[in-house]
C-alpha cells in the first residue's frame, strides 16, 4: 500500500511542566492517542487519531492538555479548501462513500438567529413568571373542530370523544435515537429524564429493550423501514407510535448499523442475529404511495385499538407542506418534521450536507398549509433538526410548532462534544458506543440529572420569554407569528415564514 496523503486534523498540546504522568489520558482515549513510554518516562501523543472529543482534556487533573486544530499547511485557496482536498484524498485512497456522524457542519442559514421576539411595554403588562402561573402543558394528537355538549343532564357534559393524546409538561421531547446507535446507559438516561420531567423519548428504530418497559408511558416507539424489534408487545408498551419515513440528516436514505455494534442485547432487542448488519431500506417496502401510508397508520391504530396516537416523521424536503398535508389526511395524529440540520448516528456526508431544507422554512410552510386547508387541528406538529436553545424553541412554537424534538442538545447534555464520529463506535463519552468499558463511563443517574436540568432550565427561559410577551399559556404563543419579526431577511423569506420585518 502506498503512503497516505492525508494530513492530521488535530494535534495534542501537552504542557510538560504540568503533566504528572498519571496516564489518565492514555486510559480514557479509545482512539489510542496517548501512551506512556517507560524507557523515557514520558507521556506521548499522536494527534493523527484525535477526534477532538475533549475527553482527555476534561479529565486531565492538572489541565496539562489541549487540543488544537493543526495549523494550516495547505496553501490558501477559497475554492480548494483543506476540507475539500481532504475529502478527495480520502476517496482517492478508499474508493468509498464518506460517512459522518451528527448534523451537518456546513454553514446553512440558521433562520432562528434572524427572527426576534416581542415583549410587552405599557399597553399590555408583561407577566412575571416567578410570581404568576406560566403554563407550558401541551397535548399532542388529533383534536376535533368543536365540542358537542349534552344539555340534558343537570350539568352540561361534553359528548365529543377526543382521540388519544400525549400530555407534555414541557414542549420538548427527546428525538429518535436507537439502542444500538447509542448506548444502554444513554437510553436509560433519556427514559428516566422523560418520566421525571413529564415528557417523552423516542426509541428510534432500534426496538425496545425489556428493561425499558417500565418507562413505556413516556416512550414513543418507532416503526421504521427495517421493522427492527416491532412486535405486538413493543406497540403495547408505548405511549405513541411513530412511523419513520425520513430523517433530516439523510432524507431518502435508509440506515445501517454495522454488525460490530450488534452485540447480544442489541441482537435480542432488534431481533436480528448477533454480529449481523442492521440495514433499514430507504423506503418502507410496503409504502409506495400516500394510500399505502394510510394503510400502515390504520394497521397500527387497529393493532393498538385506537388507544394511542400514531405519528409520521418526515424529513424537510422541498415539497414538505404537501407531504405533511397528505400525511394528516392519511390519518397521522402527529407530524414530526426533521430539518436539514438534524442529527444522525451515521450518514453519507454528501447527503447530510446537501439534501433537505432548513426546518424553519419547512415548519412555516407546513403550519400555513394545514391552516389554509382547515386541518391544522387534526394533527400536532413536532419539529426537529438543530434545536439549540430555549429561544429556538420559543420561536419554533410561535411559528406554529406544538413541540420540538431535541437530539444533539440532549447528547451534549450527557457529555457529547460533537466530534461527529458516532459511526465509529469509539465514543469516549459512553454515548454512541456499545463497548462495555466505554458505556460504563456514562452514569445513568448523572445522565438523567443533566437531562432534567436542561429541560428545567429551558422551561424557565421559555416562561421568561412568554411572560415578557404578556402571555401565560403556551397555546397563546403557538402559531402566534405576530410576536415574531425578521432581521436581514429577503421579502420572499419573510413571506414564507409569514412574519413581518423588524420595524413594521
Amino acid at each position, binding site marked *: 500500500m502506498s503512503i497516505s496523503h492525508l494530513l492530521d486534523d488535530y494535534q495534542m498540546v501537552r504542557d510538560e511542566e504540568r503533566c504528572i504522568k498519571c496516564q489518565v489520558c492514555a486510559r480514557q482515549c479509545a482512539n489510542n492517542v496517548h501512551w506512556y513510554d517507560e524507557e523515557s518516562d514520558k507521556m506521548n501523543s499522536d494527534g493523527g487519531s484525535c477526534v477532538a472529543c475533549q475527553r482527555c482534556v476534561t479529565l486531565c487533573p492538572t489541565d496539562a492538555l489541549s487540543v488544537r486544530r493543526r495549523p494550516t499547511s495547505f496553501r490558501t485557496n477559497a475554492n480548494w479548501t483543506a476540507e475539500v482536498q481532504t475529502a478527495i484524498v480520502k476517496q482517492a485512497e478508499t474508493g468509498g462513500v464518506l460517512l459522518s456522524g451528527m448534523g451537518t457542519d456546513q454553514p446553512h442559514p440558521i433562520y432562528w438567529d434572524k427572527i426576534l421576539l416581542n415583549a*410587552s411595554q*405599557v*399597553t*399590555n*403588562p408583561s*407577566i412575571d413568571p416567578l410570581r*404568576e*402561573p406560566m*403554563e407550558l*402543558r401541551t*397535548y399532542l394528537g388529533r*383534536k*376535533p*373542530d*368543536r*365540542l358537542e*355538549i349534552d*344539555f340534558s343532564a343537570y350539568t*352540561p*357534559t*361534553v359528548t*365529543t370523544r*377526543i382521540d388519544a*393524546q400525549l400530555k407534555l409538561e414541557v414542549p420538548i421531547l427527546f428525538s429518535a435515537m436507537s439502542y444500538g446507535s447509542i448506548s444502554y446507559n444513554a437510553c436509560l438516561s433519556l427514559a428516566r429524564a422523560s418520566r421525571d420531567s413529564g415528557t417523552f423519548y423516542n426509541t428510534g428504530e432500534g426496538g425496545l429493550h425489556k428493561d425499558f418497559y417500565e418507562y413505556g408511558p413516556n416512550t414513543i416507539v418507532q416503526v421504521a423501514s427495517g421493522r427492527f424489534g416491532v412486535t405486538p408487545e413493543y406497540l403495547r408498551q408505548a405511549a405513541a407510535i411513530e412511523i419513520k419515513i425520513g430523517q433530516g440528516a439523510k432524507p431518502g436514505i435508509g440506515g445501517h448499523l454495522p454488525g460490530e455494534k450488534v452485540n447480544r442485547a442489541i441482537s435480542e432487542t432488534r431481533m436480528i442475529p448477533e454480529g449481523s448488519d442492521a440495514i433499514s431500506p430507504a423506503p418502507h417496502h410496503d409504502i409506495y404511495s400516500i394510500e399505502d401510508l394510510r394503510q400502515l397508520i390504520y394497521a397500527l391504530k387497529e393493532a393498538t385499538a385506537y388507544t394511542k396516537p400514531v405519528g409520521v416523521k418526515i424529513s424537510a424536503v422541498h415539497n414538505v407542506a404537501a407531504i405533511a398535508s397528505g400525511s394528516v389526511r392519511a390519518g397521522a395524529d402527529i407530524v414530526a418534521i426533521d430539518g436539514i440540520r438534524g442529527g444522525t448516528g451515521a450518514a453519507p456526508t454528501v447527503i447530510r450536507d446537501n439534501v433537505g431544507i432548513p426546518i424553519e422554512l419547512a415548519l412555516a410552510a407546513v403550519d400555513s398549509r394545514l*391552516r389554509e386547508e*382547515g386541518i*391544522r*387541528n387534526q394533527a400536532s406538529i413536532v419539529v426537529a433538526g438543530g434545536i439549540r436553545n430555549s429561544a429556538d424553541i420559543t420561536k419554533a412554537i410561535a411559528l406554529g410548532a406544538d413541540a420540538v424534538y431535541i437530539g444533539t442538545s440532549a447528547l451534549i447534555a450527557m457529555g457529547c462534544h460533537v466530534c461527529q464520529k458516532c459511526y465509529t463506535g469509539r465514543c469516549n463519552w459512553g454515548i454512541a458506543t456499545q463497548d462495555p468499558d466505554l458505556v460504563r463511563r456514562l452514569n445513568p443517574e448523572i445522565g438523567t440529572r443533566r437531562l432534567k436540568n436542561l429541560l428545567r432550565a429551558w422551561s424557565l427561559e421559555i416562561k421568561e420569554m412568554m411572560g415578557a*410577551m*404578556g*402571555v*401565560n*399559556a403556551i*397555546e*397563546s*404563543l*403557538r*402559531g*402566534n*407569528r*405576530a*410576536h415574531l419579526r425578521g432581521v436581514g431577511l429577503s421579502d420572499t423569506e419573510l413571506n414564507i415564514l409569514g412574519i413581518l420585518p423588524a420595524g413594521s
Partner: protein
Amino acid sequence: MRDSFYIPSGCAISGIMSEEGRLFGSDMIMSSIAIMHFRANGLGGGFAAYGIYPELKDYHALHMMYDSPQGKADAEELLKRYFVVRTDERIPTRPVPVVKNRPVLWRYFVSVREELKELYYDLTEEDIVVKAVMDVNKSVHDAFVASSGKNMGVFKGVGYPEDIGEFFKLDSYQAYMWTAHGRFPTNTSGWWGGAHPFGLLDWSIVHNGEISSYGINRRYLANFGYECLLHTDTEVITYLVDLLMRKHELPVDLAAKVLAAPLWKEIDRLPLAEQQKLEALRMVYGGALLNGPFSIVVGSSRMMIGLNDRIKLRPMVAARDHDMVFMASEEAAIKVVCPNPSSIWAVKAGEPVVAVLKDHAA
C-alpha cells in the same frame, strides 16, 4: 391641574341592563361613562343600545358609516344582492363642535332575500348576514358596517363618549340594555369604525385591554371562515364570541372558560368529570384563549356578559339592584347612577357575570 398629573390607564367600559326588559333612557349610561372621562383620550367613544327599534324588531338594522358618496353607492349596490330593504334613513345626529370629520351615517332595516336563503339552504339567516357584513367591510372602499343586529344599534365615533352620545341624540332612544365605551387607543389610530362597541349580528363588545394572543386568535378564526380586517383585538373577541356561542352553541359559562381559561393547577384540583370537561375545552379551543389584559362587556339581545381575563389584569366591578345589573371599569361609574345597589362586587378573574333577559320580557 389634575390633567397634567394624570397617568393614562386605558379604556372605560360600562353596561347597564334591566333583566325585566324595562326600557329606559340614555341618561344613566351617559353619566356612568362620563365620570370615567379620564380613562379615555378623545379618540373614540360609543354606545350599544338594545330594544330601540320595537316597531322594526323583525328586521336586521344595519348601521353604516360611509367616507364618501361613492362608498354609499357601492355598498348599497352590494347590500341589495343580499337583502330586501324595508326602509332606510339618515341616522339622526346634531352638530357638536368637538365632533369633527364625521362620516355619512345611514341605517337600513333589511331582511335576507328569500332566493338567497334557498341558494344557501345549509346556512342560517345569521350566517348570511355575517357573509354580507364581511363582504361589505372587505370589498367596499369607504364603507363600514357598525352593527347588524335586530332591534339594536351601535352609535360610535371619534370623540369622548359623552360628546358622541350628544351627537347621536341618544336622549331620544329607550332601551333595556345600554353599553358604553371611552377609548384610549394604542394599537390603531382613532377612526370612526375602530371605535367601540364592535358589533356583529346582535353581538356588541366593549373592551378595555390588549390581547397578546391576537396573532393566533386571528389565525384560529380563519379556520372557521372569519376574516379579521380591522387589526383590532375587539374584532377578534366579537368573532370568537359568535363562533363559540352562536355556531358551536357553547353555554355562556363554558364559553367564558374558553376565552379566559382556568389555570391547569385549578383544573387539576377539580373532580374528575369536571377536570376532563375543562381539559377537553382547553385542548380543542386553545386557539380561542384570550391571553393578555382585558375586561369586556358583551351585549346580545338576551343577555349582557361581563368577563375579566384569566388573571385579572384589568379592573371590573359589577352590581345588582332589583332588576338592574351594572358592570363598569370603576365602582364610581356604578355609584354615580345607583348610589346604593343591593350588592356590588369586584368581578373575579375568568368568572363571567351574566345578566339574562327574563323569558316573559321583550
